[in-house]
């Protein structure tokens, strides 16, 4: 019974209850072993936390990329069919048709390493060696003119030297302060300047599946 009381109290003010004193509340689960944590804890952060020891160069990465990546992303990262474009797009984010790539949009190089390692190659995830991931990351940075030397060694020690072009391109959610869609009283009558007419039709594009149905 007392456990239920504890749970209720700590639900209301969890922060005060957090910590060792509240561990073993239900006595469920078992400790994770170091080997188990190592097997699954693969995430990388912008500060380099999580990066394994290893290294690679863009020149080495080109070989792996050609074998493992180019079939979808293209020899030059241009993207085949609708697979993602990886290269280019610099200075297009203000354009009418921005091209968002690793080089033009991604704020952190750690995201490349993390994503390539956890989810690529598509259909054979987590099959690349750590050094291969460093090499592919270096090659992607090289193709995007972020690394200038294709023999430069990218490693867990040099990783923090990389500064992505769009690192300052992100701002926090401003929907409340800026967008002004809260607390306004909606208009109910005569809300437009005269009668409303159609200005655009989906039919013109005709991109709906099974449109004949």
């Amino acid at each position: 019974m007392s456990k239920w009381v504890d749970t209720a109290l700590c639900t209301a003010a969890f922060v005060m209850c957090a910590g060792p004193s509240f561990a073993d509340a239900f006595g469920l689960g078992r400790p994770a072993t170091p080997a188990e944590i190592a097997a699954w804890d693969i995430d990388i952060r912008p500060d380099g936390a999580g990066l394994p020891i290893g290294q690679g160069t863009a020149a080495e990465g080109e070989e792996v990329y050609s074998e493992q990546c180019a079939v979808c992303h293209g020899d030059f990262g241009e993207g085949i069919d609708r697979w993602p474009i990886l290269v280019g797009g610099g200075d297009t984010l203000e354009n009418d048709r921005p091209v968002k790539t690793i080089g033009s949009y991604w704020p952190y190089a750690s995201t490349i390493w993390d994503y390539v390692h956890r989810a690529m190659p598509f259909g054979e995830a987590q099959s690349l060696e750590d050094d291969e991931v460093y090499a592919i990351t270096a090659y992607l940075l090289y193709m995007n003119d972020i690394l200038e030397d294709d023999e430069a060694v990218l490693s867990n020690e040099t990783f923090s030297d990389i500064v992505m072009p769009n690192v300052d391109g992100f701002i926090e959610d401003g929907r409340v302060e800026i967008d002004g869609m809260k607390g306004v009283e909606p208009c109910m009558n005569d809300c437009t300047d005269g009668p409303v007419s159609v200005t655009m039709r989906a039919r013109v594009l005709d991109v709906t599946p099974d449109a004949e149905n």
Partner: protein
Amino acid sequence: MANSDNPTLSRRAMLGGVAGSAALATVARANDPAITEMQEWTQYLGDGVDAAPYGVPSEYEADAVRRDVPWLTADPVSSVNFTPLHKLEGIITPNGLCFERHHGGVAQIDPAMHRLMINGLVDKPLVFTMEDIKRFPRENRIYFLECAANTGMEWRGAQLNGCQFTHGMVHCVMYTGVPLRYLLEEAGVKTNAKWIMPEGADASAMTRSIPLDKALDDCLIAFAMNGEALRPEQGYPLRIVVPGWEGNMWVKWLRRIEVGDEPWHHREETSKYTDLLEGGKARRFTWEMDVKSVITNPSPQAPITHEKGHTVLSGLAWSGRGNIKRVDVSIDGGRNWRPARIDGPSHDKALHRFYHEFDWDGSPLLLQSRAVDSEGWVQPTKDALRDVRGTESIYHNNSIQTWHVRKGGEVENVEVG
């Protein structure tokens, strides 16, 4: 018009129509064979109880299915399909019709081999089996899940003819699961922890950063939906439920939760799910789903098939910030509005069903709906939203949808001005 050769006369046409009720007794009408002829289902026995151990819908409902838009993505393994909103009633989405979004296909996981690990800034990294998780106290909660890219194809203008395609990346089910805070308490969260990162066991190993406050507030670790085990395409055997927040965060096939002091800035919260504004800056961590509504009937896939007269308009409204206080409906493209009638349960961060019944005079209509949530957020017009967001956000398009109903009842996705 009433047609004496038509065996599918509506009740209204039978009672009224052009002839008028006064003529009812005198006008000769063909008898309805649905009544006068013996039907096979009346005469002969049907299937026994075990014909379908897991029941399926009537064969006459075969078009109530999820559909995809093939040109949207490179491969169906990393793609999306859409809930047939125009075929649904009430607020609960049947499990088999909940839209799908996968990044590495549907993982088929043996629950006996599934584990949930909690590690990082905790006193005691733990591993749970499915059996362990089901020994925690459970909660049942009804929540919508909306992909942040729902309606994303409509930023530049009317594009797809059907609410299934314009608004079908949303569903709403009752989840059964364990409050995430119980699991975190079990591991003992360290005082410097501020974030968690759920991770999937599928071939995309999906990850998102979620503030610890949200994790402790209302997140669930769910193993059931609408009374049965999660469907594989919805994360069987385990997913995280992040009420009101964009669907990408509701990591499926959940195998691990790491606790940390900073966000991870992984691919799905940098390259994707950030909202590019005019001027080249992008908003990040735009988690909450804005107040939104859509008329599901009539809509392009569900035209009006009856004559003028009493007409039922039906739709859905939802908000990631609370419940729906009010829905207004316009039949003249937003010039004049009338309050719609909300019917059925009203839960925070769940779909709401609304109706507007009116006497259609048979003339063309420009139908719109506009929702207001319990926090005072008002669904904006398309122009108002574009004024502040531009057209390259991809995500969080909650603007007011317009359907053009033609004289014959045919419906088209349009924009108005």
